């Protein structure tokens, strides 16, 4: 997909002015947050499970080579194949070769963020293979030719009316010519249209929530059941997954699954949790004839051992996104790539480069909600700060900002000068601000004063006020 992360500011401004989008985003304010809170309260062990989940993933990442090899050995022993891919290009090629070998004309797809990451749909289309998204949200945005705007609710930016328009336009070819208004009718029509596609598809491609080293299983979680039809009906099942999806054993899966749905939608457990462990065996009446796991690295191995390693614990529950005031104001598309919200602000620079995604770690109010609700205890604000530091060190921030910070840093290292210069500046600002004690415009600070006033300083430096206060109290 096209990347527009560099234009975050412009996209965010547009999003704030988009009345339809704001209406659609309004729906999420009531839903996710309250439901998660309730689900969490119903499970007294929730916080302890978070600690355990964090430890499971830390352990796995620390021994990732061991668990990757163990997983591969199990999959092979169960007649499946594992394809290791360094880059999106390698992953796309592997998938294309499998599709071409079985002469696939259409493939059904379950929701997979990795498929989004490697831009699989465009690639398959360019090679004459029709990809059919089956998750309702993904199906809607496929019709609209848009990227997902939320990792678990990809069409959250669409209103019912927009969905109705899309179906009216695209379902004509199936003889469905009535315009539908009711959500129920829209869901039913999508179900009817997609049903024959499941059966006709030659290959089914799904994502994975976990890869289990113990059993060589791929764990797939959905509410709709679409990924199960996608796995079960075609001749070939291809799983797209990234290397950090590994966990050691089945018990570990369940520890983390007790957190996933509760954090995501507030459900106790998602409707369908499937352990897929290879192709159909002798005597079975259904299931795929081939089972392939496409294992993508795409820079993740470089993140191990760095200050960003913790993000590899992420289970894509979207709690951080649902609780983020910035996301809730601008939606997912402003982030300009596959991942959005706080997890996207940390992950995107890692996957597509800080030069491209440098603005994203700034898209935060540092309110800390994301870290507080993250079931994997990922220190998201800290990592956004790390990116800001790197962005500054790498020289990706704007020149006026850099000059200002450098001047301040130089002053701060020269305390004898810092005091008098700051005292002068503060006194001057306090007088200029006048009785309102606020600035509407301030040179070099347009980014701030464009949308809000800048408060005038108190007229004295903190250190001076502190000393005066201590003296008044008679302290040391």
């Amino acid at each position, binding site marked *: 997909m096209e990347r527009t992360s560099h234009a975050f500011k412009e996209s965010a401004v547009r999003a704030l002015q988009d009345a339809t989008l704001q209406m659609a985003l309004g*729906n999420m304010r009531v839903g996710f947050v309250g439901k998660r809170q309730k689900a969490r309260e119903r499970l007294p062990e929730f916080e302890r499970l978070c600690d355990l989940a964090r430890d499971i993933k830390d352990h796995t990442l620390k021994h990732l080579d061991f668990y*990757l090899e163990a997983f591969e050995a199990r999959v092979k022993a169960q007649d499946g194949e594992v394809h290791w891919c*360094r880059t999106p290009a390698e992953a796309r090629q592997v998938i294309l070769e499998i599709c071409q070998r079985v002469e696939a004309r259409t493939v059904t797809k379950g929701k997979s963020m990795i498929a989004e990451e490697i831009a699989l749909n465009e690639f398959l289309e360019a090679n004459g293979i029709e990809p059919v998204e089956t998750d*309702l949200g993904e199906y809607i945005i496929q019709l609209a030719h848009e990227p997902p705007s939320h990792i678990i609710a990809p069409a959250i930016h669409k209103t019912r009316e927009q*969905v109705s328009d899309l179906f009216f336009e695209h379902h004509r070819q199936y003889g469905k010519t009535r315009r539908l208004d009711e*959500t129920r009718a829209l869901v039913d029509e999508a179900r009817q249209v997609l049903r024959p596609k499941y059966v006709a598809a030659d290959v089914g491609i799904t994502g994975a929530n976990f890869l289990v080293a113990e059993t060589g299983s791929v764990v797939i979680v959905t509410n*709709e*059941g679409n990924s199960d*039809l996608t796995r079960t009906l075609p001749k070939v099942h291809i799983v797209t997954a990234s290397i950090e999806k590994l966990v050691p054993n089945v*018990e570990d899966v369940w520890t983390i699954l007790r957190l996933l749905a509760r954090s995501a939608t507030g459900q106790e457990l998602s409707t369908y949790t499937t352990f897929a462990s290879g192709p159909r065996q002798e005597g079975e009446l259904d299931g795929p004839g081939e089972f392939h796991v496409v294992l993508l690295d795409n820079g993740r191995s470089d993140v191990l051992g760095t200050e960003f390693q913790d993000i590899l614990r992420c289970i894509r529950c979207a709690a951080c996104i649902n609780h983020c005031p910035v996301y809730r104001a601008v939606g997912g598309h402003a982030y300009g790539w596959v991942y959005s919200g706080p997890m996207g602000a940390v992950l995107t620079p890692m996957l597509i480069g800080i030069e491209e995604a440098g603005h994203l770690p700034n898209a935060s109010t540092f309110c800390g909600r994301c870290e507080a609700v993250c079931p994997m205890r990922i220190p998201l604000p800290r990592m956004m700060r790390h990116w800001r530091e790197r962005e500054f060190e790498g020289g990706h921030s704007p020149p006026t900002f850099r000059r200002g910070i450098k001047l301040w840093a130089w002053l701060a290292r020269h305390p004898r000068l810092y005091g008098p210069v700051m005292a002068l500046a503060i006194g001057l600002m306090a007088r200029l601000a006048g009785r309102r004690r606020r600035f509407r415009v301030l040179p070099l600070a347009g980014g701030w004063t464009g949308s809000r006033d800048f408060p005038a300083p108190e007229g004295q430096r903190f250190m001076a006020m502190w000393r005066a206060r201590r003296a008044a109290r008679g302290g040391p």
Partner: protein
Amino acid sequence: MSAGKEAARAAILARVRASLGRGPGEAARPDELARRLAGGRPNLIPARSRVGAEERLALFVRMAEEVAASTVRCASPDEVPGAVGAFLAGHNLPSELVMAPEVEGYPWHAAPTLTLRKGRASKDDLTGLTGAFAGIAETGTLMMVAGPKSPTTLNFLPDNHVVLLPTGRIFGAYEEAWAELRRQSPRRPPTTVNFITGPSRTADIEQTMQLGAHGPRRLHIILVGPDAPPGEAPPGEEG
């Protein structure tokens, strides 16, 4: 594996090891890794499901109904054909069903109005009838295991899914049911294991929940067996 693919594999593993600051095969504590790889030790099972058999059954029913499954009790297998017929009649459904071979042993002759076909589901089947490997009380979840007598398509394709679950097969937690599966299938896990919690659903249009997205619109669980299943401990658990 082709040379290119072998190279990708080697490169990824080398990169992982370099980042972790380790040479190949250099695992910190090999016996700890082997132990974890073997599985079988639950990390933490919530207190909610650590209850006696009767309460476990009640919890299962409560949680399943909370996610919009319907349940009904049959004291013995003889009552099952009638219960299936009642479900179909109650929803104005035709009396044709596609059935998993695993449940052909029920006394179906007692309900001559039902038309039963054995096998996997096709896209035009309206109602599927299956057994279940286990029920899990913690969240009212069904555990379905694929095999020659239990095709997976039956769980997903038909609009209506009727499940026969013996009350003695209700476990407290997922880990306990999986332990039973490990015992029965020690060499490898079955091809597909589905944990099903309520009928299919979606909230992808304006965050409004709708049942029956792609899988079944209705999930009906017929609990077969005495009111209180025998024994206080979950089935399969020693002591």
